[in-house]
């Protein structure tokens, strides 16, 4: 049924809006990308830019009062938005899995590690306890947890943050998913543990050939794991392309601003003060037309009040900025779905 040439995941014009007392909050607006097996997409942005909302929308985890719309949201040839909840639940944990950022609270405190690992497997496979247990032991061992046998009988509070995050990763891999969405999987961890977990994720993904969406606010982390990058600001993608393109020649003023906040980006002279982006993230309630970055942008002009289309910076490298559109003059609009 799956078309050979069709990407594993196609997202076209994905929007998420939440009704709040003050109006409609447009958390994600018109985000598009495709993802193939073995590929890692890094999604980077500040808190509240909609990156977690987007992951939850793809997984179908958002509550009912939240509206998710998309031109296309296809996974393995299936229209995710058209699937009934029961079919989505069949996919979750089996074909697509999620790793959350809170290792302290994302595990149930009253169930043993073993039970939480095994129940995923037993839910999706017609497997008995023994088979599930073997798979759990194998994966705990695989994610680098020593004495896995003993850990199976332990409870989350008996494990350190790093160990719990390893358990979360093992849990996501129980059914060998085709898509792993990792939402800030290393944010709550020490830097040394962070590096270990990143290396582990990359290795496991290489082995399994799964696609991964890696969500983080940390540019350094994204640069290490991602093949391609999408920079999000206030709910929409401001720049996207291969990791080399976005990190090598950032085109959008927001992306450039982000890099200026980093000490070793090459955009800040040695000894010069680190940059910061003035202002705050705008409210996404009500009117969200035009470029949302304009109140903080050094290049802002009147044209920024109009809807800004994505302009091609290079092949597969795109950015939504009026200044770029001017520079590229007659450059054709890039279809986000086009392969690099």
């Amino acid at each position, binding site marked *: 049924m799956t078309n050979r040439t069709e990407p594993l995941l196609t997202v076209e014009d994905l929007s998420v809006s939440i009704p709040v007392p003050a109006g409609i909050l447009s958390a994600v607006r018109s985000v598009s990308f495709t993802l193939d097996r073995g590929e890692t997409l890094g999604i980077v942005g500040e808190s509240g830019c909609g990156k977690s909302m987007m992951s939850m929308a793809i997984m179908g985890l958002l509550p009912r009062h939240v509206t998710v719309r998309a031109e296309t949201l296809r996974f393995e040839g299936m229209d995710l938005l058209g699937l009934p909840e029961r079919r989505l639940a069949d996919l979750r944990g089996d074909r697509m899995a999620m790793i959350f950022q809170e290792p302290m609270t994302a595990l149930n405190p009253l169930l043993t590690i073993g039970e939480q690992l095994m129940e995923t497997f037993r*839910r999706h496979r017609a497997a008995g306890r023994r088979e599930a247990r073997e798979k759990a032991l194998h994966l705990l061992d695989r994610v680098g947890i020593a004495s896995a046998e003993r850990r199976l009988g332990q409870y989350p509070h008996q494990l350190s943050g790093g160990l719990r995050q390893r358990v979360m990763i093992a849990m996501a891999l129980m059914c060998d998913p085709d898509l792993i969405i990792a939402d800030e999987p290393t944010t709550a961890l020490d830097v040394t543990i962070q590096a270990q977990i990143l290396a582990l994720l990359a290795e496991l993904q290489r082995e399994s050939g799964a696609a991964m969406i890696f969500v983080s606010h940390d540019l350094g982390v994204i640069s290490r794991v991602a093949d391609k990058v999408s920079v999000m600001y206030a709910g929409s993608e401001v720049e996207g392309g291969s990791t080399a393109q976005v990190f090598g020649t950032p085109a959008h003023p927001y992306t450039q601003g982000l890099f200026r906040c980093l000490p070793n980006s090459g955009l800040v002279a040695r000894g010069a003060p680190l940059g910061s982006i003035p202002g705050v993230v705008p409210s996404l309630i009500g009117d969200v037309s035009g470029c949302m970055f304009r109140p903080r942008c050094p290049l802002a002009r009147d044209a920024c009040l109009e809807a800004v289309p994505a302009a091609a910076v290079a092949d597969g490298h795109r950015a939504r900025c009026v200044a770029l559109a001017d520079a590229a003059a007659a450059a054709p609009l890039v279809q986000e779905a086009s392969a690099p």
Partner: protein
Amino acid sequence: MAAFVTKRLALALLVAIFVSSISFSLMFLTGDPAIAIAGEGATEADIEVIRRTFGFDRSFAVQYWDWISGAASGDFGQSFYFNQPVVELLAERMPVTATLAVFSIGFALLLALPLGILAAVKRNSLADRLSLALATVGQATPSFWLALMLIVLFAVNLRWLPVSGADTLAHFILPSIVLGYYASPSMMRLTRGGMIEALRSDYIRTARAKGMLPRTIILKHALRNAVLPVVSVAAVEFGFILGGSVVVESVFSLRGIGYLAWESIGRNDFPTIQAIILVYAMIYVCLTFLADVLNAWIDPRIRVA
């Protein structure tokens, strides 16, 4: 777990000793028990005889030791009024009250848990509001009134159930409904609150991300976390039903402990009152201990702490 149980047990024992000394001194707080027993119009000599017979002339410590060591071996003395050993009275009445309490708490939980879960899962729905209404009415309805209404409907008009007495288990249905309905609102609201909180937590999101089905998420992942405070409250409610069933026991002519307590208090039957207080205190201590152990069994974090 063993260390936890030992610690709790030691604590329970301390509470038991403390409570027993208080319940014993109650007799002296109401004045000279010899005068009370002798009744109106007794001479000074009569009172003195009574004082000697019952040993009230000895020191408090000696009397307490006498009483508590007797109680420990099952001897609570002789009832002044019924003229039979208090232990016999308790043995006669206890099964009635215990049956009533077990049925009542069972009914209360049967009502509270499903409705609490339903109200939490379908929050702000009609079902939620109806269960809130049911809980409010339950808390506001005087139990004697509800008892009479149920008797009129089910016993007198429909003739489905007996009016009063304790001969068969069917006799316990109506009183258990009355007591259970009265005890259920707090547990229902606690279940609802606990479930709402649990359903919001990150581990529920994880369970959904794993594709677990709603039934598993609610019953296995959320309820386990929500039920901890309900266990503690159920234990207290159980004790409360044991002790507070006087009204219901009288309406349904169930000759249980509650009824016995009421009779004894009216008649200054000190040995019986003391024994009842002590037994209740012990039951409370046991229930709290059991609730602690049950919670520790559910929640591994309590076990270790």
